[in-house]
């Protein structure tokens, strides 16, 4: 197998390289939202429809029906944007795939099956309301939930491998002794997969809660809104503390295995015993300091290594060109952690009020905080993903293959980046408009049926389409 450094031999190679990375970044950043919803929403569907069937309560079933409609659009966009990614692995990083395809192809192949099952049972779920018995219909949500979670697990094992390569040997630059199972179960896998999967439940739960918090703020206080809010928040509240715990485990794992990433995350330029924990601030590579940060003395040494006197390596101690840019990594890390604690606080406040009042709290400040949480959950996902990806640079496979050596030799990446970004922006805008319209449509039908007691109405029954003029 041909391997080794490719010398960029064309004008503009640097901008092509940057464009290639940017395109992969936008594609992933776009897809990750839908992927997270694809993991989280089926669980909410399963819960809502399950409760509805068990209690013979149509409001819960209506919730599931509404979410299913939105999920139909979201899943479609997620499926096609995910397909683009599988193309882009080769289109942008043929050097990586030539090298790593056989090592990390296994989880992707497994993910293919999981995705297959998710698509099949989602087809049954979305179009089977009238064709399947209620129980059979509800049962379809189980394989969707399982395969959604499995997809996330498989894909993240591949990313964990890029951080923690295992399961192969290099013989004069040639990949040999491949052990696909060992590659999949690399040391980073348990740490990273659990954290990412929890983040999907967290962000989805808060996003759903946010939708209903916004509805209640606009005066719709029916049972459907309160239950939608409560169920979404229940999922978020379970995930929030676990996120903090697994986040801490991840940071300590990074400290042990990717010291340059940790230094970038913390804005640590100098090697230091008893390093402070910097909250906020903006790393300045010119002066090799991180000004404007609140420093907690010895905090970083303690959190990373369990000792207030532990030595934390700084970015300056690594050879030039082997460290990531600390600016996006540090800022991304602050954003992720900050949001994590904010969401935990919101969830805790909600639960305390719920427990004391025995009813879903609808205080306006709390509702506004919940609306913000809906956006913040996904912001945290994007930020965390930036931390791990940019923090790994300049490596695409940590310590083994540099990103620059994996980029495609094909020309035109700048144009490709511009066009694909425009496409994603357009798709995103259209999607937002359509989802808002979907919500508006259900509001209209609510007004029309305001006299039925709970202020809710069934969606129009799904009939076989009209026969048309025959």
């Amino acid at each position, binding site marked *: *197998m041909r391997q080794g450094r490719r010398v960029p031999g064309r004008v503009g190679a640097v901008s092509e390289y940057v464009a290639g990375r940017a395109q992969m970044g936008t594609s992933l950043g776009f897809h990750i939202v839908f992927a997270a919803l694809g993991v989280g929403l089926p669980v909410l569907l399963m819960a809502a429809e399950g409760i509805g069937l068990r209690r013979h309560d149509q409001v819960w079933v209506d919730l599931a029906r509404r979410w299913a*409609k939105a999920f*139909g*659009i979201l*899943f*479609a*966009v997620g*499926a*096609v944007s995910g*397909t*683009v990614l*599988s*193309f882009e692995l*080769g289109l942008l990083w*043929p050097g990586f*795939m*030539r090298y*790593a*395809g*056989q*090592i990390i*192809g*296994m989880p*992707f*192949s*497994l*993910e*293919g*099956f999981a995705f*297959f*099952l998710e*698509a*099949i049972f*989602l*087809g*049954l779920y*979305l*179009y089977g309301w009238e*064709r*399947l018995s209620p129980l059979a219909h509800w049962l379809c949500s189980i*394989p969707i939930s399982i395969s959604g979670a499995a997809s996330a697990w498989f894909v993240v094992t591949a990313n964990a491998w890029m951080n923690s390569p295992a399961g192969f040997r290099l013989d004069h630059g040639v990949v*040999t*002794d*491949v052990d*696909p199972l060992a590659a999949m179960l690399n040391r980073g896998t348990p740490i990273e997969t659990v954290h990412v999967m929890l983040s999907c439940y967290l962000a989805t739960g808060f996003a759903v809660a946010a939708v209903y918090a916004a509805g209640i703020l606009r005066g719709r206080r029916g049972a459907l809104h309160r239950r939608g809010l409560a169920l979404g928040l229940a999922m978020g509240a379970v995930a929030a503390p676990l996120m903090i715990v697994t986040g801490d485990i991840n940071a300590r794992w990074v400290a042990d295995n990717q010291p340059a990433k940790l230094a970038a995350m913390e804005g640590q330029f100098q090697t230091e015993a008893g390093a402070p924990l910097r909250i906020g601030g903006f790393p300045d590579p010119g002066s090799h300091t991180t000004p404007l940060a609140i420093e907690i003395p010895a905090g970083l040494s303690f959190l990373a290594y369990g000792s207030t006197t532990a030595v934390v390596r700084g970015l300056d101690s690594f050879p030039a060109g082997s460290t990531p840019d600390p600016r996006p990594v540090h800022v991304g890390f602050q954003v992720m952690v900050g949001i994590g604690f904010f969401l935990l606080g919101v969830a805790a406040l909600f639960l305390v009020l719920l427990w004391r009042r025995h009813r879903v709290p609808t205080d306006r400040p709390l509702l506004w905080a919940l609306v913000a949480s809906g956006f913040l959950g996904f912001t945290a996902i994007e930020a965390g993903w930036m931390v791990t990806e940019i923090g790994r640079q300049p490596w695409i496979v940590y310590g083994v293959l540099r990103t620059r050596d994996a980029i495609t*030799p*094909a*020309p*035109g990446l700048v144009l*490709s980046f511009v066009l*694909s970004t425009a496409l994603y922006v357009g*798709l995103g805008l259209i999607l937002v408009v*359509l989802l808002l*319209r*979907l919500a508006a449509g259900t509001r209209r039908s609510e007004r029309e049926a305001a006299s039925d007691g709970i202020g809710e109405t069934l969606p129009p029954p799904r009939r076989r*389409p009209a*026969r*048309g*003029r*025959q």
Partner: protein
Amino acid sequence: MSPAVLDYAVAAILWSAVIAYAVFAGADFGGGIWDLLATGPRGEVQRRSVSRAMGPVWEANHVWLIFMITGLFTAFPATFATLAVGLYLPFSLAALGIVLRGAAFAFRAHARDVGREAFGRAFGIASAATPFVLGACAGAVAAGRVRPVGGDLLAPWTTPFALACGALALSICAGLAAAYLTVEEDALGHPALTEDFRRRALLAGGASTVIALVTLPLTRIEAPALLDGLLGRALPLTLLTAGLAIAAGAAMLRRRYRLARLAAAGQVAALLGAWAFAQAPYLVPPNLSVEGTAAQPQVIGALLVVYALGGALLVPSLILLFRVFKGRNPAAL
């Protein structure tokens, strides 16, 4: 068992996925083509018919492509990398088409008025462009023009032969969709719509025949090795393709819709099978062979285990999906 046998087993599974993608997702592309070309007093009804047929199954059908891509880069990484570099532009266009088609289809279901029309148009155009581009890529591969170096973005897939393959893919997708829709509309008791799609199936079949006959001399010029294979080792499959094409046309003429559907799907499978046999042992001629680019034996072995276990879950699930939405026994005549 020698490792080479296992390499070929994986290659055969992946090629089967190509066939499944063509037979199932190809018809979804074809549905989009007929959506674009929907005309006459029943134009809007034809569009609804396409949407109704595609709705529950198109996402699952689409996954065959992902199955194929992930399998290819796992089992034959060098082949995957070469295809990605050599066909950079058309693959990018195909990815674009796939996004536009899927997103527009999903968006249209929830849009109104102007938006509905625009999404419908995007869905139709992307549904026509994507199989054309993928067919041209297939032509570039079959003619042995794909190279692992960037540079000329257009040359490999814009030769007359490759473009003819693109046109053939387009007409085949259209024909498949029309044939499938005759069965669906016939079962729903819509004689006029059934007749619309019957005419379209015959039209597409005629177009495919003409394009195939035009492609033949081009094959002689641009892909002589492929032609030798088609008329040599793969001759039985080549003849089967022709036979099934005639059978599909004859059955459609006689309004034997279910038979026509089966023959049309079989014809596509036979055609792709003939191509595979004709160019074996090469995945991407003239250099990249099954054995030459296969991953290490332990990867191939593990992948086969995954396919066996995954298939045990996948096949019953797929059957369930099609039984619920496409009638109890799609293969019955």
